[in-house]
């Protein structure tokens, strides 16, 4: 039980996907213009990630090593198509908002990265815990960033008016430059806080996690990178 919890909870803070591992930047930047979009995208990712982890883990012994990436891609892509259909059928406005970023979940590093790094080596239950934890962490981050950008940029939160009258929305935040800058500043703040903590313990200041192609699990796995 404690192991299950450990795998689940690591995605929530210690390895928080977009902020600590800097994974899957495209949706993090593109669909976080409102909190609602962030939440919706996160829900789609939870669905795909958990099920793909489960399926990969179930078939992990039957798959020959050479074609494992192809198999992972087929599994992930099928799930993404399923999400696309379900989202169109039951939440069409969200599907319109997210646009091509729904099909693009398939190339999100998190999906293939977790399949390769975790699910292909662990039993189904643990894989589900891992996928669920990572997915929820991803959703939390997206919703947080979405809330930040929506409140500052439009003065609303989940479509509700939350700012005082006469508030002039900071439109920069909901546009492309604001997406990059706010994520960059957020990462810097996290590094800053980490360094303040380290300083208190008498440790040397460090740079934050860097985004290398190595940290992107799928690239690392696809071959020699």
């Amino acid at each position, binding site marked *: 039980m404690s192991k299950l919890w450990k795998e689940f909870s690591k995605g929530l803070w210690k390895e928080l996907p977009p902020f600590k591992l800097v994974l899957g930047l495209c949706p993090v930047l593109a669909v976080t213009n409102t909190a609602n979009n962030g939440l919706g995208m996160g829900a789609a990712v939870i669905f795909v990630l958990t099920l793909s982890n489960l399926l990969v883990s179930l078939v992990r012994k039957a798959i020959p090593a050479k074609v494992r990436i192809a198999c992972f891609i087929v599994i992930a*892509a*099928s799930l993404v198509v399923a999400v696309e*259909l*379900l989202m169109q*059928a039951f939440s*069409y406005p969200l599907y319109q908002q997210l646009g091509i970023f729904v099909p693009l979940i398939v190339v999100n590093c998190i999906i293939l990265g977790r399949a390769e790094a975790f699910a292909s080596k662990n039993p189904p239950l643990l894989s589900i815990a891992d996928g669920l934890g990572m997915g929820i962490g991803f959703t939390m981050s997206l919703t947080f960033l979405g809330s930040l950008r929506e409140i500052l940029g439009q003065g609303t939160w989940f479509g509700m008016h939350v700012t005082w009258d006469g508030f002039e929305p900071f439109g920069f935040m909901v546009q492309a430059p604001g997406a990059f800058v706010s994520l960059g500043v957020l990462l810097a703040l996290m590094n800053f806080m980490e360094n303040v903590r380290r300083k208190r313990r008498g440790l040397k200041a460090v740079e934050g996690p860097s985004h290398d192609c190595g940290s992107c699990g799928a690239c690392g796995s696809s071959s020699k990178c």
Partner: protein
Amino acid sequence: MKEMIKMVVVLSVLCAISGSGLAALKQVTEPIIEEQVLTYVQAPAIESVLTGYDNDPIKDRKKFEYDGQVVMVFPAIKDGKLIGVALETASKGFGGQINVMVGFDVAAGALSGIGITTMKETPGIGSRVAESGFTAQFQGHPLKMVELKSKGGDIDAIAGATISSTGTVNAVQNALAIYNSLKDQFAQSWS
């Protein structure tokens, strides 16, 4: 060799399973999706631009040909008589295409209103063309001289969003052109 066969078998089985599973899902969701598209994209706009009808404009829709393109037209019928039509046109805005549903009042020979169906304008700036303050200007507007004030018409552009305003007006002008050339066909096909 044995491994090779295994590889091929595994991949084909996987593809077959996922293919058939998705096909089944598609079968189930297809009618729901079609309905969703109409409800979320066209219906709200149609409702806002047509009034006083007792039919279902979406169910009675018909396709017409204009300038080599297919135009879908939604009729508003009351007591078996065509009182209005709505059709959707598009024009280029600041962030991409702006789709506008334009309603026509057949009897009065005027616009009965416009509604924005889809657009990618900047939230809070260009997106204000979808707000009632802007769209209300088109309500009851006669069928000529639909143009921004800066170009000699009587439509107030949204401050700071000239491009989006112009795009919307252009779409309305397109709709006007279509309506003018097809209005006799409309009268025939729903009478």
